[in-house]
């Protein structure tokens, strides 16, 4: 555990400081800026690797903690306190990895305001990691909101034709949600007299308060996830954002909602969460099916993938609110999976968008002939998205459906239909883009170059790594998740004699 | 002996008449005069209170109000003069360039 440097602070602030240093570089030196940003992101990634190797998987306690007793704002009892456990550690790693890929994919596609772009990207990275590491609720909220600014700019400045509308929509949507959470945080603070997440978790709150706070937090988290009726910012934001923006949105940002449920809503308001389980499961199922079917009517490449995110995130929330270890672990793993796969799909779309500047599915067709390598990559990610065994999507979805079924038979069955729909729209997409006759517009396109292959390769490896040997990731979660479930008063006993309980349920 | 309430009712009436003038008249000068009326209403009540409470504080305040009223009149009339140079009207509803 002794690393010789404060790893989490380094990972959080290195990109931020790096971004600020970029400010000093003259606007004219575009290549210096790019290489600088890349270097910063790579160093951050390397620095974050000990999180993977040195993580102690046998404890649910927070690890690599920093700054526990050090007060940041003494008056409000706020600390600078960071740490990770089995639930959050993987997201930190995912964030550091994805940022590198985002920088690589933007290398040639961003031509305007280059400096600002990379600064924004690094700022987002820092705040994203901050969100996952914060053990102080206030700190968490700061990072949570601070991320909005660069993201807003990323969509609005470098996005597609309707970027302004989408950026504002994204911003307001998420802001409305998170301000309600802010009120919730303060009410919670009034109860607990601390912002320390661990201490907040160790208390119990009256049921009515729990219920109220659950919904306050729900507003923030559900918008971010996004859950069913508040999902409409997502297609717009994903579609209009530049590739790097879409990737970050899909891979990391929308995970924060689900992460929030796991980190706050469930352990702090276990009774309310349990009471609201049917609602949450219901919304998740609706998201799965609705998000899936609506994909069938999309004509825009990115929009389709965006809606598919709604569906996949439905799986995530389903797993989380199933309140059993399969569901929750599946949910967490599925968050990682979705980050990898959807991130990769957006990267793929970025590759082709750089060449054609079109997102309309009908503008493509037969791409597999001129771009076989690209087709191969896209295919793998498509299949991973469908949830084919041996790829990562399967592990997550299977565990979630298993967990969901355990929680409620109907929910499990309905969620499983999502798998069918997923195959239908993704294959439809793949067919229309890569198969059938070669469209004249794409006849002369060049296949992926080395940089692009390098961008996608890590994700490809991860797809199979998780698919074939998921234990190297699942093992991070076991202890933390079972601890979480014990808190919900459901996990421990239920897991031990599961078959019996199921039979009891069956009667 | 005149009861205090008589003075107070009188002051209220004068105050309200001043307000009435302020809300109804479009001539700036008359609006100023209406404010002076309102201030006189206040003064009447203050002096009356002062008298009935055997305390001079109210009269000190009246003294100050009169001084301020003088200053106010000076500034207000200066503003009117400045305005009139640019736009020869004293009708306040014609000054609605700034709106929305």
């Amino acid at each position, binding site marked *: 555990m002794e690393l010789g440097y404060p790893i989490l602070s380094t990972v959080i602030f290195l990109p931020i400081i790096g971004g600020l240093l970029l400010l000093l570089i003259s606007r004219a030196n575009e290549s210096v800026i790019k290489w600088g940003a890349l270097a910063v992101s790579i160093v951050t990634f390397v620095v974050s690797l000990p999180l993977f190797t040195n993580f102690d998987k046998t404890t649910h306690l927070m690890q690599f903690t920093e700054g526990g007793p050090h007060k940041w704002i003494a008056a409000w009892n706020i600390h600078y306190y960071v740490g990770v456990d089995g639930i959050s550690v993987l997201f930190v790693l995912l964030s550091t990895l994805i940022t590198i890929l985002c920088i690589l994919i933007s290398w040639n596609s961003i031509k305007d305001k280059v400096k600002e772009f990379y600064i924004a990207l690094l700022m987002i990275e820092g705040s994203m990691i901050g969100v996952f590491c914060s053990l102080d609720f206030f700190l968490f909220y700061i990072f949570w909101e601070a991320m909005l600014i660069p993201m807003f700019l990323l969509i609005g400045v470098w996005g597609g034709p309707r970027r302004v509308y989408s950026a504002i929509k994204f911003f307001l949507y998420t802001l409305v949600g998170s301000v309600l959470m802010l009120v919730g945080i303060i009410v919670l603070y009034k109860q607990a007299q601390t912002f320390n997440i661990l201490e907040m978790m160790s208390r119990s709150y009256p049921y009515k308060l729990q219920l109220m706070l659950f919904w306050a937090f729900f507003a923030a988290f559900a918008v971010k996830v996004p859950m069913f009726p508040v999902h409409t910012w997502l297609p717009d934001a994903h579609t209009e954002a530049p590739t790097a923006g879409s990737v970050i949105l899909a891979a990391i940002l929308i995970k924060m909602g689900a992460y929030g449920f796991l980190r706050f809503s469930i352990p702090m308001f276990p009774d309310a969460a349990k009471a609201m389980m049917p609602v949450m499961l219901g919304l998740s199922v609706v998201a799965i099916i609705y998000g899936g079917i609506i994909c069938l009517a999309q004509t825009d490449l990115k929009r389709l993938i965006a809606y598919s995110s709604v569906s996949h995130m439905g799986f995530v929330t389903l797993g989380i609110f199933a309140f059993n270890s399969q569901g929750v672990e599946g949910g967490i793993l599925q968050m990682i999976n979705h980050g990898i796969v959807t991130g990769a799909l957006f990267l793929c779309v970025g590759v082709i968008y750089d060449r054609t500047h079109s997102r309309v599915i009908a503008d493509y067709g037969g791409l597999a002939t001129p771009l076989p390598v690209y087709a191969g990559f896209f295919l793998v990610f498509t299949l991973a998205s469908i949830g084919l065994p041996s790829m990562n999507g399967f592990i997550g979805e299977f565990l979630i459906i298993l967990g969901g079924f355990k929680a409620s038979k109907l929910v499990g069955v309905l969620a499983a239909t999502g798998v069918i729909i997923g195959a239908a729209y993704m294959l439809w997409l793949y067919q229309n883009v890569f198969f059938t006759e070669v469209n004249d517009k794409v006849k002369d396109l060049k296949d992926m170059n080395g940089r692009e292959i390098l961008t996608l390769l890590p994700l490809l490896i991860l797809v199979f790594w998780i698919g074939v040997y998921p234990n190297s990731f699942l093992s991070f979660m076991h202890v933390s998740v079972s601890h979480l479930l014990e808190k919900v008063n459901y996990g421990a006993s239920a897991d031990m004699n599961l078959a019996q309980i199921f039979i009891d349920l069956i009667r | *002996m*005149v009861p*205090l*309430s*008589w003075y107070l*009712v*009188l*002051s*209220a009436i*004068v*105050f*309200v*008449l*001043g*307000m*009435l*003038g302020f*809300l*109804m*008249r*479009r*001539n700036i*000068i*008359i609006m100023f*005069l*209406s404010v*002076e*009326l309102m201030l*006189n209403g206040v*003064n*009447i009540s203050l*002096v*009356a*209170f*002062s*008298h009935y*409470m*055997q*305390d001079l*504080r109210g*009269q000190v305040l*009246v*003294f*100050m109000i*009169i001084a*301020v*009223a*003088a*200053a*106010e*009149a*000076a*500034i207000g009339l*200066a503003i*009117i*003069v*400045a305005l*009139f140079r640019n736009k020869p009207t004293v*009708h306040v*509803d014609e000054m609605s360039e700034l709106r929305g």
Partner: protein
Amino acid sequence: MTLNQVFFGYFAFVIVLTSLLVVTRKNPVHSVLWMLIMFFHVAALYLFLNAEFIAAIQIIVYAGAILVLYVFVIFLLNLKQEIGDEQRVGEWPVGLAIALSIGLLMLIPMAGIKVGMMGKWGVKAIEDETHTVALGKVLYTDYLLPFELASLILLVAIVGAVVLSKKKKKVEGQ
């Protein structure tokens, strides 16, 4: 009804009447003159209330200084033409209604006020020292700060009047 009350009735009547005239006359000069009459009656009321000094400055400052200023300005602006115009704003009934309702609401509480604690400046005490001295004592001891502040306000008024009403400077440097 005592004599005091009769006198009060007269003054009150005139004050209200002239106030009404002030806010209703078309010609601002007439308004100012009605106001002058009103000020005299108010000053007389102050005399009833044992406030001779206040009564004096009511006449000296209000009637003598402020109103004269008004008259100056009115003549300066030369408002002949304006007198023929409509004198009330279009929404005057609204203003009327609001003002009257406020007035109605004010009357009952105002009439019912019971005064607070008694001070030491009873009629006797004032008569002993004369009102001017009494007020002067208070002003220069307890109320020294407000007194000084009032002077500052007058200074601001002077500066303001100069700044605002100075004639347009000849454009410099051309």
